[in-house]
């Protein structure tokens, strides 16, 4: 009888629950709470949170195993059937969809099909501020090395400053896959905290007078030189031309940027490719998001996550994010010193790629200071250029690190 009870006890997970397991469950519950109740990036935090939970059920064998387990040496790896058989379905999904770098570009295709380059094309000079806002990525790269991270890890940490989830995940897969879980969590958490971070930095750096710079008044005083007479045609040619140019200059950014521009192209062509655009933004993107979230969550086993490096990533990610916002704001302030057509510095704060939340937050801030000062379309210009900027920055990091 005692043997039966002993076997029954061994069948359960009670004997293998450690305090680390409980901590990971709590982290999973917090992520699920933030996603479900607080609605912080629910489409990602819910699958990630649940992925963390299932990965830390002792005995379930759903956590992602280290790559050394599937490495057979001499550049050979276990096949997907062996991985599924030995380590379970989440490892199968991780090594086939994430480790290969497949899902982030697929999500970028959907993002492209949801993106409208119109605001950027109408305000092209604002695209430069999407470049200034990438400074956080490269500054934190240096700071992370000083904190003891190696170059690959530091680059993956810095890319959080781009405020782009798929870009952060793609770069980390390429450079420091063992940090994928904490970096993805930090990236998406800070993106969800854009409504807190942008006002915090903006209030520190922007004066009341600058908050009230009215972009429409400026446009009336200094009208643009060229009016776009055929926006539809420009929007169709633009992704093709830009993709070609970027592919020549930064080929390593093409998996992300190429898919973004392809997604945008099938949207802009209109009715003849609308079915493709619908697929990219609907079933494909949703499926990719589920698998991405669950598998990224499943990388966060207690052995991987509960380390001092995770704390460094959480702190470093915030600094990267804040520096990127500050970089964009300071670039606009610098520009305003010399230009007669002033720009509201809030537009620089949206040079991150958190589209469209960053723009919405900046617009709301501008409206607080002047209820007639709608800057959303101007913010979208630098916001969209920020998507391009962070993908290019990721390409540079992947090439040079």
């Amino acid at each position: 009888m005692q043997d039966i009870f002993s076997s029954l006890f061994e069948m359960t997970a009670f004997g293998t629950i450690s305090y680390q397991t409980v901590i990971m469950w709590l982290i999973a519950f917090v992520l699920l709470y933030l996603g479900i109740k607080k609605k912080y990036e629910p489409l990602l935090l819910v699958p990630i949170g649940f992925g963390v939970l299932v990965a830390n059920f002792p005995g379930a064998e759903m956590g992602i195993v280290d790559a050394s387990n599937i490495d057979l040496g001499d550049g050979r790896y276990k096949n997907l059937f062996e991985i599924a058989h030995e380590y379970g379905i989440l490892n199968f999904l991780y090594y086939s969809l994430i480790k290969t770098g497949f899902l982030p570009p697929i999500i970028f295709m959907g993002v492209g099909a949801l993106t409208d380059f119109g605001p950027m094309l109408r305000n092209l000079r604002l695209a430069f501020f999407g470049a200034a806002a990438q400074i956080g990525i490269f500054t934190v790269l240096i700071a992370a090395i000083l904190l003891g991270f190696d170059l690959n890890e530091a680059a993956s940490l810095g890319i959080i400053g781009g405020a782009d989830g798929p870009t952060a995940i793609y770069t980390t897969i390429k450079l420091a896959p063992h940090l994928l879980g904490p970096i993805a969590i930090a990236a998406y958490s800070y993106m969800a905290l854009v409504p807190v971070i942008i006002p915090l930095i903006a209030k520190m750096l922007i004066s009341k007078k600058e908050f009230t710079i009215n972009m429409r008044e400026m446009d009336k005083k200094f009208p643009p030189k060229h009016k776009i007479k055929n926006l539809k045609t420009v929007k169709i040619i633009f992704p093709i031309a830009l993709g070609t140019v970027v592919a020549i200059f930064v080929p390593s950014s093409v998996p992300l940027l190429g898919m973004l521009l392809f997604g945008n192209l099938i949207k802009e062509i209109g009715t003849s490719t609308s079915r493709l655009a619908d697929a990219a933004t609907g079933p494909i993107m949703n499926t990719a998001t589920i698998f991405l979230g669950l598998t990224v969550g499943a990388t966060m086993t207690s052995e991987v996550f509960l380390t001092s490096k995770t704390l460094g990533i959480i702190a470093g990610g915030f600094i990267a994010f804040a520096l990127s916002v500050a970089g964009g704001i300071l670039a606009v302030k610098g520009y305003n010193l010399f230009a007669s057509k002033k720009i509201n510095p809030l537009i620089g704060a949206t040079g991150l790629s958190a589209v469209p939340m960053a723009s919405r937050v900046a617009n709301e801030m501008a409206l607080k200071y002047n209820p007639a000062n709608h800057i959303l379309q101007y913010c979208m210009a630098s916001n969209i250029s920020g998507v391009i900027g962070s993908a290019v920055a990721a390409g540079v990091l992947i090439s040079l690190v």
Partner: protein
Amino acid sequence: MEQSLNNAFAILVVGMITVLLILGLVVVLGNLLIRITNKFWPQSENTGKAGSGSAGIHTGTLSAIVAAVEAVTGGKGKVTKVEKK
């Protein structure tokens, strides 16, 4: 660490220049495309709007009709006049 720091500084400089260069190209390319399309494929002011015979039709209704015709004809058809009977 010194070697890593040197590399990181180099990446900072090269990275920021590359991002600026690419977004500079976005600006140049965008302006170029706008000029070319303005010169060779300008859309008349009336495109997307029906002709003068459409007076009296609510603009929202008119836009819906124009969009529907564009969707059904794959962008080839144009609404020139909408009349109430």
